[in-house]
């Protein structure tokens, strides 16, 4: 199994079947951020075989 792709990240959330934008292997990448104004979360579409990014956090 590849260990350097998005689907190995804790922030990878597969899109449920039946959703309008469902595609096999497509997911939401949700990142928690925090700055002086407080916490916020960002979500962007990714696919399971996308290369890991700087925010990658491996699943255990």
């Amino acid at each position: 199994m590849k260990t350097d792709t998005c689907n190995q990240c804790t922030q990878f959330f597969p899109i449920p079947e039946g959703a309008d934008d469902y595609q096999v292997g497509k997911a939401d990448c949700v990142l928690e951020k925090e700055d002086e104004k407080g916490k916020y979360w960002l979500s962007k579409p990714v696919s399971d075989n996308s290369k890991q990014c700087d925010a990658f956090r491996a699943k255990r």
Partner: protein
Amino acid sequence: MNQILDAKVLEYRGKTLNFSPEDPAEAKIPTDELHEHLEKPSTARTKRLKDRCRWKHAAAGDFIEKGVTAGIERMRFLTEAHKASVGQPEVIRRALGLANVLNKSTLVLQQDEFIVGYHAEDPNMFPLYPELSHMAVQDYLMSDYSPQPAKEAAEINEYWKPYSLQSKCTPYFDPTDLGRMFQFSSMEPPTFASGYNSIVPPYETVLEDGLLARIRLAESHIAEVQKEMMAFPWNGTKGLDNIAKIDNWKAMVIACQAVISWARRQGRLCKIVAEHFETDPKRQAELLEMADICHRVPAEPCKGLKDAMQAKFFTYLLCHAIERYASGYAQKEDSMLWPYYKASVIDKSFQPMAHKDVVELVEMERLKISEHGAGKSRGYREVFPGSNDLFILTVGGTNGDGSDACTDMTDAILEAAKRIRTPEPSIVFRYSKKSREKTLRWVFECIRDGLGFPSIKHEEIGTQQMKDLAKYSLSGNGATDEEAHSWANVLCMSPGLTGRRKTQKTRSEGGGSILPAKLLEISLSDGYDWSYADMQLGPQTGGLASFKTFEDLWEAFRKQYQYALQLCLSTKDVSRYFEIRYLQLPFVSALDDGCMELGAEATALSEQPNPWHNLITTIVAANSLVAIKKVVFDDKKYTLEQLREALLANWEGFEEMRLAFKKAPKWGNDDDYADTIIKNFYEDIIGGEMRKIINYSGGPVLPTGQAVGLYMETGSRTGPTPDGRFGGEAADDGGISPYMGTDKKGPTAVLRSVSKVQKNQKANLLNQRLSVPIMRSKHGFDIWHSYMDTWHDLNIDHVQFNVVSTDEMKAAQREPEKHQDLIVRVSGYSARFVDIPTYGQNTIIARNEQDFSASDLEFINADI
């Protein structure tokens, strides 16, 4: 010193009036910090949200908070779709562009928020619009606010150059004329170059029908016309019209499907955060509720107030920031939300809640708007000092049957504004003699707390205007008498229809500015701008020496004004021509019942004309004309040649002469000499010339006198004027307000002057500054109410108030960090005083604080 304790005593109708504070506790608050004690957020959550609000205000063209920048995602995904859709009908390309942005953009969810959705990839960012104006984007690329990676952003902007609205329109105008417009001193640059825009979204169809129903409607229309096209015998004179209709409906379907998917993705984010990040069970439950709401709306009709607020906010983002940029927050919010208030608060049939929960929801809405960023060019950030964007909603007025439209939803909107104290969104209140006193009390409470809003519009004038403009409808389907009651201010001042159909979709219909102070200046110098740009700024209409009579000067101004009008209004309609062909709004089209029924495009279909153009700095020009007539032609104290010499020296060495001109009669004192000339100026030239122009929609264009922050910018670009003003000083701050400090005969003299102008006007902004001790006294409401009834009887279109002491403004100048909550009315918008540059702050301090004398109270028939 406490000004409130020091309030004067007044003898009136045999009584001694004492203006002690209505709330005795206020007597202990120092006058110069009063406004720091007025904030009362309704919940701990809204207090936290305000404390961490990501304000996007700008001053002197720069964003005030650190870290605010332009994002790249919208322009990236729009461009990607544009490249991939070559060969498809343009309206389909626009829909695919919107869909690509919505499908691929990063979503944002912030701590504590209940209303969700954002228009950029980070809460500190805002999107840009290279398809509108590559010049505006270039502005950002050259600044610290540039989208990153900057190289990619530059490539995108370069890509759009041949396709942008700016490039499409420019070849139809003489570069010399455009160069004059770009000075932004006598005319606002054309829409196609600035990208600045406004809209009144038909929110009601989203809330009442839901987008799935709109999709079904579009699909059924497509099926109908396809069937019609196959029916024998074919008639090419009509059948071919269906091609464009089919494309429009298909584009609507693509846009609505993408919006539903985007909103549901937002709901999914809430659910993921609830289940994987949030640990507080209460917030987890709330996030799951938010997820459910975003899944249902805007796809389905709203059933409760939370649904309605969320669906409305999504629609706002799409219509004002994602499909295309548009300033404003135009809506008749209380009427729109009242059915959902009834469902949730009164009937408790869905999303049951108490009135206080509605107040919290509105406070959250206000904070959400306060952190909405707009990608305006530097020029437009400069002309709104202290502002984010012109977020303005409307409440009050009457229903279609003429009954009072004020409800408990109106009160919740006003109470939230008073409690949370944000300068945005501003509120317009439609004042009717039918407005219930309970609601008027909330209006007054906001005003006397110094918010600068609600600004007040005359109910009957606005409604009649909708009826009058309907007569010019090219389709014969303008507002009915009932629909004419559904209106809101589009931006600061001009009313436009609200509702499911016939609303304004683009600023090429109404908006844009002409600046009479500069036009007057160049009318004195053969059209040449010697004081700022050192160039010919208008036609050659003769120098001062050539004017033998006052009428010669009057006619020279008229010619300068006609030139500016022709250019400003023709550039707007040419913008419209290309908007219809390249900047279609398929999502907005899907919301409008007319577009849906006719298969029409939103920018093309104009059932209700609403043409207007803003006149900014009229009073400097008007007072100057009065001064020339009085001092030169009537009293013959100085010659035009002497005046010319003094103006070229910026009055230096001519102080005695300047004072003679400064002491000439001024607007706002019920002085018949000044008022007769100025009334004629407004009605014959400003309105009379403008209404000769017929716009795209078939209506006569009417002037809207206002100032936004342009009275400062224009002032700084306008040389000395014959009203005694030095070059570079600010111009007048309203559309019909007296020049700052020159209204010396009290508040009712101002009303009498202003009421004399009635003909050929669409709207005119009147700024007034009222005494803090009087307004905060136990007599404050009664005096204000009587004043408002008198204003109404005098048939004046508008009025708005600053109720802020000079002491407090000066204290804020000394220690800005201690006065973050001091809000003032600038012109069509309010701002935190400390966010305004000193130049602008001083113009507000210089406004005359109107006291009420016994004769003023008599005039307004105050029953105290």
